[in-house]
């Protein structure tokens, strides 16, 4: 049960933190269509967070609500990928982060459609259409901007180079993974690595971007060892629940 709970936190923490980062753009995107698209993606991700955390609270069975899980844990209790908490940078970096994440997210959800846990399969079913659309969109923009002007190309490449060391973590086995895979609850992280790489390689090639060499890879997010950025995200995200404990909103 604890293993399952950890898995659900991972899923919800990814969507919560990335949704937070996207919503930081509100009103500041380079085109109105992008303001709308970013808000829409953030909205999907927050909705997904509610689903994952709702189930996590149920599985944990200690009476914690989805909001409790979002608002009343400190950084070391978060299980998101470090990629999700990377600062936005320029809009190109934000899009690149989104594409790298969406590609993983999509493949992960595809695998979860066949989860032996029906509740997980049902959530995956429900959200995979949203995420397929996120991927379609971010992939398309990466291609267009990579193959746009010299400046847009350079910015997308810089974003890619900067974020690449945060992609290795997606495929690392952590303690709970073997048990989850054995029970057919969730795929082993490494099982989607090849597909992710080929999807990314194909997109980058179409975008005329250079796929970085696989060098040093950051890790730790799924074990609660984050970057220094997450603490600031949570201070902001959780302020009201922390400052007015027990209040209803």
């Amino acid at each position, binding site marked *: 049960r604890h293993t399952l709970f950890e898995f659900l936190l991972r899923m919800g923490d990814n969507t*919560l933190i990335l949704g*937070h980062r996207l*919503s*930081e753009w*509100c*009103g*500041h*995107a*380079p*085109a*109105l*269509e*992008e*303001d*709308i698209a970013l*808000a*829409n993606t*953030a*909205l999907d991700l*927050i*909705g997904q*967070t*509610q689903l994952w*955390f709702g189930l996590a609270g149920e599985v944990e069975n200690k009476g914690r609500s*989805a*909001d409790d899980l*979002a*608002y009343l844990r400190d950084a070391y209790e978060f299980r998101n990928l470090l990629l999700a908490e990377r600062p936005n940078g*320029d*809009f*190109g970096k934000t899009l690149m982060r989104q594409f790298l994440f969406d590609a993983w997210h999509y493949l992960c959800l595809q695998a979860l459609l066949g989860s032996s846990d029906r509740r997980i399969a049902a959530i995956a079913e429900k959200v995979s259409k949203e995420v397929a659309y996120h991927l379609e969109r971010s992939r398309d923009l990466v*291609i*267009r*901007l990579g*193959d*746009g*002007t010299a*400046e*847009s*190309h350079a*910015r997308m490449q810089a974003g890619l180079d900067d974020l690449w060391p945060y992609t290795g973590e997606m495929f690392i086995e952590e303690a709970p993974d073997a048990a989850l895979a054995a029970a057919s609850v969730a795929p082993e992280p490494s099982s989607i690595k090849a597909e992710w790489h080929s999807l990314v390689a194909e997109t980058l090639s179409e975008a005329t971007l250079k796929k970085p060499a696989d060098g040093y890879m950051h890790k730790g997010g799924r074990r609660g060892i984050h970057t220094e950025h997450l603490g600031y995200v949570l201070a*902001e*995200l959780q*302020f*009201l*629940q922390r400052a*007015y404990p027990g*209040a*209803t*909103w």
Partner: protein
Amino acid sequence: MAPEERAFQERVDAGQKIEPKEWMPEGYRKTLIRQISQHAHSEIVGQLPEGNWITRAPTLERKAILLAKVQDEAGHGLYLYCAAETLGVSRDELYAQLHSGKAKYSSIFNYPTLTWADIGVIGWLVDGAAIMNQVPLQRCSYGPYSRAMIRICKEESFHQRQGYDILMKMVEGTPAQRAMVQDALNRWWWPSLMMFGPSDDASVHSAQSMAWRIKQNSNDELRQKFVDQTVPQAEYLGLTIPDPELKWNGEKGGYDFGEPDWNELFEVIAGNGPCNSERLGARRNAWEDGAWFRNGLTAYAEKSAARGAASMAAE
């Protein structure tokens, strides 16, 4: 009056819609462009004060609702820019006017959102006042504007209910929450009343706009209606309207209320409000910082078109 102008006015008087390709007086076109673009800019700038609380929304549900709302506002901006474009002005031109300070947006968005209660009060009062202004515009003489307004009004009234719901929850909550709501009302009440514009005697453009059915009610009429609608809601919430002159007038069947500080309104319009430079600065930066993005997409589109033409030629 020229014959075509007379024919135009007759159609307007008969409640017919004017469509983009049809003849219209230059003043009508200009007035519409000014009004629609000002409204569009307001939707865009209006993302900022509410966006300020998305990352700090107190629950996941409230965060989702606020995201959806801000997204709707950007969408409204989009409809309205499209409506303005039918009058022969591009979105980029309208942005340039906004960024240069030539075009205005609703002054209400030059006030800061200081607590979560502000998000509720904006929904309740600011969207409430906006709806009051916009409902008659659904019957406006210009077709594209009228249709945009029908869509917008439906969503806005949804937003208003959500804002009121935030406040309901908060006034049922702790004393600190109730105090936040009252404080937010104190700060937003007068700016909301000023959203209807100066009082009728001071208002320019009104008569002609009415004749053209671009405007259908006077500023004071709408303001009165807004007060009459809002006061009972405030009472229901257990809040005090920060106006010592407010009282029921049985004779007129509405509330008497104090005069807003028009000086403040003119100051804010002139650029001297709490957040003018930050709001406009944020929009300018977003636009300038995003130039590479827009240029990139254009370059890609041109390359693709050229590739398409080349492959057609090769066939």
